[in-house]
């Protein structure tokens, strides 16, 4: 049962990203946690409130963990509000990671908070990376300043609704996908966002000749344990906490197409 017991970690830094998102840097109060890989997640426990799955949004080399949390309900709100010094419980790493071995051109497509689990794959100097990120409004764009500063990444930002001082794109992330230059055979696409978004994006990419096997998605289901015991995260044959969240599109597509699966 020790697998249920979190490691106490202290919030050492809290960065406000948007009106409802913060990035927390956590350091184990004592000892260390096993290394996380991009795409994996932790179960973060807010004392007395609850525990939820949150991806790693950064993997510093100093043994800290970085997570970006969007406040949507009680637990995520409590984590969002955790001031530096607060102790948070961490279990993990859990789940599958983005498969990056042998990747030539990397296309990263993120919707909203979906950018968080993808941030750790950005900025790898040895490969060409294109990032297409969407958000509801310019104010909801995560890490916007940092992203534009990344030298090795072509960044395309788009929002559902712009404002006076927004000069970028307005529309869904699928639109730039239809037109950005890419070499389909060489491209590996990583998608994370709402299910319909991932489906539409994958369709667009398939239409452009990207092989289905080159597309990876990050799935989301209710998770209460992270260790294949609670059963909530089932999506057809998958236990998403164990067999996901990162899944090849050929495997995921039929599951995403089934109603209420």
């Amino acid at each position, binding site marked *: 049962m020790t697998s249920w017991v979190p490691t106490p970690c202290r919030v050492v830094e809290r960065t406000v990203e948007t009106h409802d998102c913060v990035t927390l840097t956590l350091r184990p109060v004592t000892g260390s946690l096993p290394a996380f890989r991009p795409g994996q997640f932790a179960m973060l426990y807010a004392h*007395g*409130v*609850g525990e939820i799955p949150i991806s790693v949004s950064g993997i510093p080399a100093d043994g800290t963990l970085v997570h970006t949390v969007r406040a949507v*309900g*009680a*637990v995520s*709100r*409590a984590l969002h509000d955790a001031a530096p010094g607060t102790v948070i419980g961490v279990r993990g790493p859990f789940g599958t990671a983005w498969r990056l071995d042998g990747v030539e051109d990397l296309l990263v497509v993120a919707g909203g908070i979906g950018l968080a689990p993808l941030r750790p794959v950005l900025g790898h100097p040895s490969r060409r990376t294109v990032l297409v990120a969407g958000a509801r409004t310019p104010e909801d764009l995560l890490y916007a300043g940092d992203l534009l500063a990344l030298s090795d990444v072509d960044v395309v930002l788009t929002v559902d609704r712009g404002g006076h001082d927004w000069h970028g794109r307005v529309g869904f992330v699928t639109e730039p996908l239809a037109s950005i230059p890419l070499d389909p055979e060489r491209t590996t696409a990583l998608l994370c966002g709402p299910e319909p978004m991932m489906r539409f994006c994958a369709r667009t990419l398939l239409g452009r000749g990207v092989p289905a096997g080159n597309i990876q998605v990050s799935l989301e289901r209710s998770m209460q344990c992270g260790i294949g015991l609670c059963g909530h995260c089932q999506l057809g044959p998958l236990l998403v906490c164990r067999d996901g969240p990162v899944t090849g599109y050929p495997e995921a597509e039929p599951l995403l197409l089934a109603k209420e699966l």
Partner: protein
Amino acid sequence: MPTIAVWKFTSCDGCQLTLLDCEDELLPLADQVHIAHFLEVTGASEPGPYDISIVEGSVTTPEEAERIRWIREQSAMLVVVGACATSGGVQALRNFADVDEFRSIVYASPEHISALDTSTPISAHVAVDHELRGCPIDRGQLLEVITALLAGRAPDLPDTSVCTDCKRRGLTCVMVSRGTPCLGPVTHAGCGALCPAVDRGCYGCFGPMTRPNAPALVPLLKRTGMSDDELELVFRTFNANAEWT
């Protein structure tokens, strides 16, 4: 200290009493919160705003319809408790009848009695944050809501059948093993399966769970010997006004 106010609308007081029935927790709770209004317990009544308002009872008079709007404005969190507050309660039987006739049965001079023609749940008048089902509510669930709100977590109030609790308790299903009609399969959990524990079929005092499949239960109830009349009555008692189908 967070302030709590307890309000009564048309009801039997049983749900409020549930708070006083938390004998072991009552005084510790009183140390942690400030009771700003609770007429059954104290004459001291303070003006709003209140952090948590707990509302018992249904709306059956024009004055009550006014008062609930005021309470909503004054309360950060509105928790409505019991079948009266969540579905209109047993007094909602008037919704299916001629209220003038009801008045004349009870009162010699019915013209003095100012009551609305319907008994309606609080949610028909204002937005509510949490609903506690039951006639009466369950003590454990009441404490759960209060402690959850104090801790800032979401209260754990499973929206599922009485059967799930019945089974967790290890009770033997009275419907399957004795042919006793039971509303457990369509009734909202929360009581801890009290009736099956005393060899009785559930009579639905917690009201329907979300998406109850009552049409599938009806033939089973008939098979266990319920007449059409009884079937009508059993869904029209303590949560008569709720959506059973």
